[in-house]
């Protein structure tokens, strides 16, 4: 355990903050401050009751806050932070949104490295734009694969006398296979997260039921919406695309209104963040 040496951490403890929709406003619990990120990971002792919960690991570098969405694993496990580009330099403070669980920052051992391979994977909105990085025993994943490629290609060319072209191609295919094995493992961990823990699609898991019930209520009526977060709005527009929409700026008044403020009218349906209301003038 790294003990906190700066009064700064007090600012972090038990401060209620707002999160993107789908995760309730949660408390953050700081557990380390003022340390070098260099090759450090986080170890948490999570009780069985919290297994499968989605939580954030948050950290502060140079006054800027970063976060990482994480799936809780029961027991003592390490959580790899090194692939995150902003996990670098001096970390002013690090916290999680889990209720107080024994937590520490540490240099990973070989068994931690293997343990981190099996960390649960959440399906995130950004998965379609890019893949989360990894490290391999502290190495950049791409550098590790490149070394595999060079070693295999050189062994084939020098050791077995294969042609350069064939050696290079097979070297690449072997390195690519190592990468693919990791990808396949990730796929299985994503499947497990949803099938075992029923974690839903962050951060709109709760919205599907809401949108489908809202669709039934709206029926042949019209609907509109107030200010919503980006992904939430996209999801509602999609789920309700068959219901007559009243575009913003139109002088028509929709029959139903989806909003984050329950005081905007008579609430007909509610979820954690959204309300379907009926009101005279939106």
């Amino acid at each position, binding site marked *: 355990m790294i003990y906190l040496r700066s009064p700064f951490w007090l600012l972090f403890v038990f401060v209620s903050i707002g999160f993107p929709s789908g995760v309730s406003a949660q408390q953050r619990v700081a557990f380390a401050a003022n340390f070098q990120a260099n090759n450090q990971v986080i170890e948490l002792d999570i009780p069985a009751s919290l297994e499968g919960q989605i939580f954030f690991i948050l950290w502060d570098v140079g006054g800027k806050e970063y976060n990482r969405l994480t799936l809780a694993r029961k027991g003592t496990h390490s959580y790899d932070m090194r692939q995150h580009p902003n996990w670098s330099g001096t970390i002013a403070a690090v916290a999680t949104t889990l209720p107080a669980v024994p937590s520490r920052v540490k240099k990973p051992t070989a068994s931690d490295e293997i343990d981190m391979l099996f960390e649960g994977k959440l399906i995130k909105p950004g998965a379609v734009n890019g893949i989360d990085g990894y490290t391999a025993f502290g190495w950049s994943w791409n550098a590790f694969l490149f070394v595999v490629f060079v070693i295999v290609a050189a062994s084939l060319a020098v050791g077995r006398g294969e042609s350069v072209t064939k050696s290079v191609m097979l070297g690449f295919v072997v390195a690519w296979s190592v990468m693919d094995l990791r990808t396949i493992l990730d796929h299985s961990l994503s499947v497990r997260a949803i099938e075992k823990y029923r974690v839903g*699609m962050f951060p709109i898991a709760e919205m599907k039921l809401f949108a489908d019930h809202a669709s039934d209520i709206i029926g042949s009526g019209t609907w509109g919406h107030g200010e919503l977060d980006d992904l939430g709005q996209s999801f509602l527009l999609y789920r309700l695309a068959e219901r007559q929409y009243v575009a913003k700026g139109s002088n028509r008044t929709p029959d139903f209104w989806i909003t984050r403020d329950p005081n905007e009218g008579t609430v007909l349906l509610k979820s954690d963040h959204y309300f379907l209301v009926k009101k005279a003038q939106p």
Partner: protein
Amino acid sequence: MNSVLILAGNVLVCATFGWAVLCVGAHERSSTETLFLSILVGMYIETLVAAIQMFLGLSLGIAGFTTVVAMAGVAIGIFYKHGVKTVRFAIDGPKWYEWLVLAAIAEKVLFAVWQLTRTHAYFQDALLHWSGRARALYGQANWSFDPSSPFFMGGYIGNRSYPLLTVLWRSLNAKFSGNWNDLIARADSLIFFVVVVGIVWIAVYRISNLRWMGAAAAYIVAAIPLHAWHAAAGYSDIAVEAFCVASVAALLRREWLWAGVMSAGAIWSKNDALVLYMPGIFAAAALMQVDTAKRQLDWRNLRQFLMGFATVLPWLAFNFIHGLGLTSAGGQLGWHGDAPSLLWHALIESPTSSILWICILAAIVYTGMPMLKDLTGRALMAGFFLSLSAILFIFTATSAYEFLLDETTIHRVMMQFSGMAILTAMYGLSLKTPEFATAAATAKKSKLRRSA
């Protein structure tokens, strides 16, 4: 279940129509090559013809019904007149490494099927531009072809300048099944994934005559990490990739018309293709016509290519008439000083494509000389570098820079390009492979035996 049957039925209609049309006249395609190409031809023609009818004012149901009936009629007519032509794809049972590749591909397909059946539509561009607009079109309540309407081209939910291949394919399937669901919203992505992998496998086998090389190429393209997500995401990027790779594969078979049709299909999938890939593919097609001895261009083949490309003109005309534009980024020119380092990160350091691009670039450089001495190699290199230059220019010197900065599009665009790039690199590597000449001679002999 109903949706699965409708999807399968529609794919069958498209493939049958495509097969019939592709088998008119002489060709040297294998059955498998024809099958993959026919699926794309069918999907392209079905959605394009339905769209033209809808531009003219017909409803989705009528346009879809008449299109499918017409396609079935054309297919029956062709089969009746010409008979069902097949070319046997003479290949032994899979070798051990091909089983491994098939297993790796099956994992991706299973993961995609799991996503399609156990998760809902989730990724933002699918919710808005692709499946969102498709659902609005299917529901009819929020769709209009009247430019004065806020619902024109589904503009209230997505980008109205985006073309309609995946949008119409999804709305038509929903119309045929009588309801919308999240399987219909994304299932075509899996079809495109399988087509990309299949085309790359067979095309590389065709150019190299080496089974291990074809299998390696198929594995490389299938294992690109982003593909497993795009095989079920409901985006159109994988459709662009499928059409582009089909176009290049058609060029390699010297099928100019179908190369043009496939490049048109890429544009009908997403306008990006017009700027990013069309110039490269056209240049490759043109260079393949250059008779270096006579220093002449064979315009007849190029004309066929352009005729195929011209099939997308109804969309381009509609887009132009309504001033829809080609991109959501605005397209303003302007250099961004940090763009090269961001590109370096995206292409070389990012885990998204891993070591793919550094190795492809190295392969192109390594095989440069034999490629330049070879007619097809020169053409492929020109196509590769023109497309790559277009991508680099768009992300460094236009307002699309913002998509490089936030890494929301750059990796998807590189994924669109990856199939073509792998084909090009593999062509170069096949020229440098000593087994290639032997295998080519053996294949020529066995081909002669087969035709005898």
